[in-house]
């Protein structure tokens, strides 16, 4: 049984002149332990798809099956990393990471343990008492990542997590993400990542879901078999990049 099973998902919003269709008839599965990237041009509903999986956005039609069952409302076994970090400016790094644990009713000692552990894992040691505004973009996203990891989710959702960072910071953060994911004691095994950067998807993911421009439909479901660590300059890598490019180009 797949961890996540999306069946004929559609999402539309009523507007003053007609309706806006964001997603149309998307079906896909996510197996436990997979790293899946969703790629598509802007406005293809990929972020909406992620929010549907999390349960923040209700679907118009179709089914979201998690472990074979339909989830009512928010799926608390998921955790999301946001493009804009979405940290509370008035909470310290530590308090930001503790916030969801507090909501879940995790006891104090365990909260402290996990906060310390993941602060260490993402390399934020020494910044526990800092406020988000005192951190650089890369450090902020580390907090966002630690906050999601501390939940120890079955499924990690990442919404363009590296898009708001400069290119060099993005490169090192991607590597760190892979390092954390591949460790045997990693808290998360399954990752669903949304991005508009094709190279990023190919570098990170086992499988790539290519979406068309709005309304989003699945254009292709590609297996990425390149050996890890992946070399961005290799011929195989670039051929795959070209392939995804032409898939998107053809349809828009």
């Amino acid at each position: 049984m797949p961890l996540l099973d999306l069946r004929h998902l559609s999402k539309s919003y009523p507007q003053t002149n007609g309706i806006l269709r964001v997603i149309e008839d998307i079906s896909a599965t996510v197996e436990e332990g997979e790293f899946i990237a969703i790629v598509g041009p802007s406005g293809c509903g990929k972020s909406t798809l992620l929010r549907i999986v999390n349960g923040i956005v209700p679907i118009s039609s179709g089914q979201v099956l998690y472990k074979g069952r339909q989830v009512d409302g928010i799926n608390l076994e998921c955790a999301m990393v946001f493009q804009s970090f979405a940290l509370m400016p008035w909470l310290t790094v530590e308090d930001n990471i503790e916030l969801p644990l507090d909501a879940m009713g995790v006891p104090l000692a365990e909260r402290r343990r996990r906060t310390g552990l993941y602060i260490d894992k993402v390399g934020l040691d020494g910044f526990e008492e800092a406020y988000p505004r005192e951190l650089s973009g890369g450090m902020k996203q580390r907090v966002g990542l630690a906050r999601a990891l501390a939940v120890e989710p079955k499924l990690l959702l990442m919404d363009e997590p590296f898009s708001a960072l400069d290119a060099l910071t993005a490169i090192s953060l991607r590597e760190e993400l892979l390092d954390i994911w591949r460790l045997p004691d990693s808290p998360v095994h399954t990752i669903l990542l949304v991005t508009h950067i094709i190279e990023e998807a190919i570098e990170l993911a086992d499988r790539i879901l290519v979406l068309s421009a709005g309304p989003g439909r699945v254009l292709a479901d590609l297996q990425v078999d390149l050996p890890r660590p992946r070399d961005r300059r290799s011929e195989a890598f670039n051929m795959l990049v070209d392939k995804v490019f032409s898939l998107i180009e053809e349809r828009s």
Partner: protein
Amino acid sequence: MKTTIINSRKLFTGTLSFLILAAILALFYAYREHTGVLHAPRFSVSARELPYYAFCSFYRMLAAYALALIFSIVYGLAAARGPAWERVMIPAIDIAQSVPVVGFFPAAVYFFVALAHGSRLGVEFAAIFLIFTSQAWNMALGVFESAKTIPADSIEVLQSFGINGWLKLKCLLLPACVPKLVYNSILSWVAGWYFLIACEIITVGPTHYRLPGLGSYLMEAADRGRSGEIVAGLLTLLAIIVAMDFLIWQPLSIWSEKFRYEFAASSPQTEAIAAIAALNRLGPSILRGARKVMLTISGPIRRFGERLPRVNLAAHPRFTLALRRVRTVVLLGLIGFMVYVVIVGVIALFRTLAQPWPAEARLIPAATGASIARLVVAYLISLAWIIPCTLAASSNPRLRQQLASVAEIVGSVPATALFPLIVMFVIKVTGGMNLASILLILTGMQWYLLFNLLAGVSQIPEDLKEAARSFGLSRVGTWRKLVLPAITPSLITGSITAWGGGWNALILSEYFVYQNHTYEVLGLGALLDSATYRTGNSVMILLSLLSMVAVVLVLNRLVWRKLYNVATERYRLDY
């Protein structure tokens, strides 16, 4: 076609809200008949009693502010819940804000005194209620705006982690409101002092009630011509205001910066706060001290909370159902109560207006014209000195800062505190009530204009000024092409608030009892006051108040709102 629909709807909501207001007003006066007259002994004006009077005034302010704070948070957050809530609750605030509050003081006195069975407590309640109405609206709007502008991702992150209820309030909603709440609290205290003094003055002058406090002390002292005591009273008031600013508002402003979202980091407000932080060395240590106290108090409570077994009440369907039922009952009860008030009020309104109208009712149109003329003169006088100052400040940043700091100090002194002094001198020297009344209106108007225009000037982008300089525009040319258009929106918002202050000042300034002699001029405020304090004719009170509210609302809708829309559309500083 579309515009006429919108206009008729606007007309409908306007009429409806006016009716509701009139109904509530009439209800106030319906209580009047049961009021006995309260005579209090004249109290001493010795400077030795000043601490007691200061304490009286201060606790009134504190009570009103506590009420306003609770109200604004509940109301603001409720209004931000959704478009349906917003559509009803925000226009209601709009109306409440544009009503001249001082006019309601006599009404409130009658109402609360009747409610308190004729004891002094009623007058106290009335004063606190009035101060509350001068403080609550802008704070509630501030909370509403903050809640509305919380970035979508912050809300989503809480949703995605399943955070709701109290934790959401504690971690997101309340902190997000802090900067605007602190900023508006400062403004509210300035407004509150103004109305507190006004209430206390009214109780000494025309009515038989006595409210011990700084305002009544000042008025009594002026009445007996004791200028030494007046100065002592003014200094006491100033000392309280300055001390509060230094010990409470400045540290709070610095603290509130922590709760700001980063994209608003370089607002002029922040700039001003940085300047404060540099000046007030005491600020940080006060903050640290307050933090220590809070931590010692909250620490044990928090540890106790940790030890309690965690029960997720929201998970129990029975509990959620019960909660929903309670909520529905409370909401229906509130709506029912409002409907009841409006119905009873409308009946009272028509019963009052059905009585024979007194002869003075014919004076209302002329009085309205005279009052508006007085306001226009005061407004023009304010503009005549403020616009040149603003233009000069626009090309000289140092002058701008000096002006701003002087204005901040002078503007924070409630103009009403100067009323006794102005009356004493102007009436003694010129004997003309007309001049005195225009001067009094001026003191209630000008600061709003100056504050808004100076803020507007500081918001003109530096690169536009540089561009003007590099293209060799003359000083006058820069004023005409850049500064004047750029400050137009601030001029309009400043004018709206200035006229709001003006209407309030009008009621105090057209009718004055000084040394047992009544000075009055033809005007709406004078009609209202003399009907309230002299003849006690409720038809006349209601008629003059209603025409004043109607004139204010019509002016707001037809003149200011339109000007505001044009100004913000054409003279916005982004492209």
